[in-house]
Every structure is written in C-alpha cells, then in structure tokens.
C-alpha cells in the first residue's frame, strides 16, 4: 500500500520544523492534485459498474443457462434458450406489438413536438405558463397515466367512445382490437412526452441566431420554408438525440400497456398489446420463473434497441439535411 499518504500516522513524524512541514504539505498537495480527481469520479464508476453495467452484461451469461430459482435448477444449455425463443410465437407477437406501438407513438410525437416548439419560440405573454402547460403531463407518474387512460379508453362507456358516439360513430373495442389498443397506448405515450421533447427542441431553437431568419425573410422565404430550411437543420443534433432516447425508452415500454390492461401481464385477452418487456416479466417473475429464458429475451431486446437506434439515427440524419459548414 503506497497510497496511504492520507492515513499516515501523525505521531510518527519527527518534531516538525518549518521546512519539514512545508515539505509534507507540498507532498500532500501533490498527491491531492494528482490522485483526488480519481477519487471524485470513482463513486460513479463503481456504483454504475456494479448496479448498471454488470447486470446488463451478466444477462448474457444467465441466458446460457436453464435457470429456475424456485426449483433450484441451474444447468448450462448453451444457445438452447435462443433457439426456443426464435420459435416462440408469443415472443414474435410481443416483438410485433413493441415495434408497432413504438412507431405509432414516436413518429407523431417528435413531429408534434417540433411544431409545438416552433409555436413556443415566439415573443408572447404568459410564456412560462404556456410552457408549464405543455410539459405538465410529464410530471405525472406512468402508473397513474395508465390508470387514467384505461378509463378514457374504456370499452363501453369511456370518454373517447362517448365522444365518437356524439358524432355517430360506433364504439371501438379498445382492447380486443389489436390496432386500436396500440393506438390508445401510443396516445398515452404521446400525451406524456410531446411537451417534454418540445421543450428540449425549444432550448436548441433559442440558440439559433435570429439574423439568419431576418435575412431569409428579407429574401422572401415563407415562415414554413424558414422552419424547414433553417430551424430543423440547425437543431439536427438535438433531433438525433431525442430520436435515440425515444428509441431506447420506447422499446422498453412496460408500465403503460400493463396498466392499460388493468394490471394483467398478458396484455389483452389474446396478448393484443403485450410488449417484449411485459413478456420478459411474465416469463421471469411469474409462473416457472425462468431466468435464463427471460435473460435471453432481454439480450435480444438489447440488440434490437441498438440496431433500431442506429437505423433511426441514420434515417433521420439522411432525411434532415444538416448545416454545411
């Protein structure tokens, strides 16, 4: 242990002359300068490593076992879990639902957020109040949102069916119809996140120098053109950031569909809106508690998230032209 300077016993030091004391404090100071930064960043890396990174990586290891906690089984089976998984129709059903809900919720959400941010990016009265108004859904808990929207989209007397009834449309089976249930869940996600993303965009938009718009409008560019040709390209990094964050979050969607289906993990009578995260939970924490199988699924979901994040990144980067500098 050479790093014990800080704990060096004080009484062992010779009677301190001025020079010796200065010498020591100099050495202490050097130690302080050189090593204390590591001490300050270490807690993050240690705690994140133990409780964040390690579990994600260990998932791969667990996925190679037939691992049931209740019966005490732990047997190495290689890639067997993955083989079974790829033939599991409920897995594919959950994957289909997850991707469907993701697309339905993310695309309209980010477009609406862009438009909303553009509207907020003005001189106006009650600015803070309006911003608070659009971001308030984000502070509500997902569990509460799920419960509230379950009733708004209730099958028989729900608010939406009532509204549809007033214009003469027959009530929709919001749970038995797969696509209707996706829509309702997407509405829930959009409601909670559109305002939040709009504020992120707004923050980026305010950093754009106003002169750009002034010269553009002197050249006769319409507000619409200015939005697409100046605003959107200039906040492209922020758009890419939100796309990636939404992809990571959207693919792990769990609480909304769970609460929407009145807390039942199967997600609808015929798994119409059971997502991958829900199916992982069902396999791992209910019934036989198959940790290996659940881990294999988690790892596949992880790969899916990485690939979709990269695909979406590339798609948005190509379709939104950046500022050429």
């Amino acid at each position, binding site marked *: 242990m050479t790093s014990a300077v800080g704990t060096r016993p004080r009484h062992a030091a010779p009677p301190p002359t001025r020079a010796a004391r200065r010498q020591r404090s100099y050495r202490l100071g050097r130690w*302080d300068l050189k090593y*204390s*930064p590591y001490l*300050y960043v270490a*807690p*993050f890396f240690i*705690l*994140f490593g133990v*409780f*964040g*990174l390690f*579990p*994600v990586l*260990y998932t791969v290891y*667990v996925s190679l076992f037939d691992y049931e906690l209740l019966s005490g089984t732990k047997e190495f089976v290689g890639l067997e879990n993955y083989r079974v998984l790829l033939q599991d129709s409920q897995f594919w059903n959950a994957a289909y639902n997850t991707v469907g809900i993701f697309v339905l919720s993310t695309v309209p959400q980010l477009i609406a957020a862009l438009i909303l941010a553009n*509207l907020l990016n*003005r*001189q*106006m009265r009650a600015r*803070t109040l309006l911003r*608070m*108004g*659009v*971001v*308030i*859904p984000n*502070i*509500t*808990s*997902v*569990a*509460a949102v*799920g*419960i*509230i929207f379950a*009733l708004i989209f209730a099958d028989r007397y*729900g608010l939406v069916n009532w509204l549809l009834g007033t214009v003469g449309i027959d009530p929709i089976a919001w749970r038995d119809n797969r696509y209707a249930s996706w829509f309702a869940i997407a509405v829930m996600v959009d*409601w909670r996140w559109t305002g939040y993303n709009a*504020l*992120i965009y*707004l*923050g*980026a938009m*305010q*950093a754009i120098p*106003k002169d750009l*718009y002034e010269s553009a409008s002197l050249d006769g560019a319409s507000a619409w053109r200015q939005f697409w040709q100046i605003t959107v390209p200039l906040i492209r990094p*922020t758009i890419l950031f939100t796309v*990636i964050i939404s992809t990571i979050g959207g693919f*792990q969607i*769990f609480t909304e569909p769970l*609460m929407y289906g*009145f*807390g039942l993990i199967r997600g609808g009578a015929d798994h119409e809106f059971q997502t991958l*995260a829900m199916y*992982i939970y069902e396999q791992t924490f209910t019934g036989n508690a198959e*940790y290996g199988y659940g881990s294999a699924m*988690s790892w596949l979901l*992880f790969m899916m*998230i990485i690939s979709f994040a990269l695909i979406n990144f590339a798609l948005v980067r190509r379709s939104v032209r950046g500022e050429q500098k």
Partner: protein
Amino acid sequence: MSTTQTLPRSVAPSPVTRRRPRRGRMPGAQLWQASPLTYLALIVGCVLSIFPIVWSFIVASRDNSAVYEMPPVPGDRLFENIERMLANEDAAFVYGLVNSAVVSSIVTVSVIFFSSLAGFAFAKLRFRGRNALLLVIILTMMVPTQLGVIPLYLMMVELGWTGTLQAVIVPFLVQGFGVFMMRQYATSAVSDELIEAARLDGCSTWRIYWNVVLPALRPAAAVLGLLTFMQTWNEFLWPFIVLTPDTPTVQYSLKILSSGPYQTDYVALFAGTSLATLPLLVVFIIFGRQIIGGIMEGAVKS
C-alpha cells in the same frame, strides 16, 4: 417588441435580441411575435395536456355509479373516497407515500452529491484519461439498464435485499446524466481563476469543492434534484419487481389498487392517482420555471 418589459424572466437568459430599435414593418419582427392563431394552438395544447389530470380529480370526487357521466363536473365525495382508499390495508397507501418520500429524498441527495463531485472533477481538475472517462459517462446514458433487471434481481436475492427499501435506493445512487449536467454547468459557472486563487491560499481540492464549487453549483443542483426526485417518485418497474406488497412505494400501491378485487372501485382508485400525483403537482407549480429551464438546458449543450 413593445411587450418586452412584461415578459417573465426565465432561468436561462433568453437570447432574444434587443439590439436594434424596432421601427416600422420589418418582416423579421412579425415572425417572432406570437399571432392569435399561435396562442389558440398553444391553449388547445395546454387544455389537452391538463384535461386528463383534471378529469382524474373529478372522477375521484364522484360516486361509483357516476364515473362515466358527462359532462365532467365534480361530485361531492372526494374525502369519502380518499378515506376509503386509505383504509384499504392491502394497498397500504400511506405507507407507500412515506416509503416513496424516503426513497426519493435519499436518491436525490446522493445523486446531487456524487454528480457535483464528479462534475467538478471533469470540469475543473486535470487528470489523465479525463476525456475518455467523460465519454464513458455519456455512453452510460445510452445503456438501457432496465434490461439488466434479471441479474440485478438475482443480486438482490443474494444480498437478501428483496422487499427492502435499500433495493430501490442503492442501485440509483448515481446517474450519468447528473454528472454530465453538473460538468456542463461547472465549466461555465466556476472560473479557473477562482480555483487557482483558492489553491494559492492553501485550500485542498476537497475544500475547494465544498466551499467554492458546491455553492456556485447550487442552481443546477436544484434543477437536478427536482428532476431526480420526480423521476424516482414515478419509478414503477423495478419497485414492482423487487418489492413486495408489504413494503410498497406509492406506485406499487396504485398497482394494487388498480388490479384484482379493488379494480372496480374506480373512484377510490382515482382518489389514489390524484393523491399520488398531488405532491409532484405542488413541486411543479412552485418550481415550474426552474424545471422547464432544466429540461431545456439538459439536452442542448451536448
């Protein structure tokens, strides 16, 4: 631009220019003035945002026979419903509220402390591997840690922590986003000269952090604290996995209320969602401006 004086100040200094005196009909001036149509669109947006919350409070005040009644006007049973909901022993709602408050507070203090400490080091101290480590922190924000829940759960079983509050506290004591946010703020909020001066006065690095940097970071720390508190309060999946109905957080209590035999008592359930949302609403109304500033700052400076 004549309304500039009446505009509320925001935490982020707004880059709106006042350089040129406005005269006449410059096309640019009109573009940045909100039109009545803009107001209308924003008000519609706000109504859509607020309505479900208001509606849940309305349902919470009704009788079960009137849950679906239109138009949405409040009933007179709010306190009766809250009382019945609180009396539900399976849901243990009060206990859930207390647990959530404890967990959220500890996590918030810890995240602020470790984030400001590491953020200070990344912004103001020189050490080998600084940039590489900072990059690692940014990458950790991209790791979907939720996918590690199975090994994490096995770890908790091993430690004997299932069903205890430390299981929902300890894994969340640090946060990559927090470190990054504090680093960004410290870079501009604390001048290098100040730190040099403190060093010449013989301050150790720790004293510089504690007496110079931490006070300067207070505004950003407050925002990070608010965001962390709300996020922890709303956490659902992990508490649902690792806790038991005997030690619920408030979200877990809601889950119990919303399923099984209590599912049909809608008004009590909505009394629950209202009560679980209320603390956050209060925080949001008091600190709304700071929270908005925090969200707007959060992503941009990367």
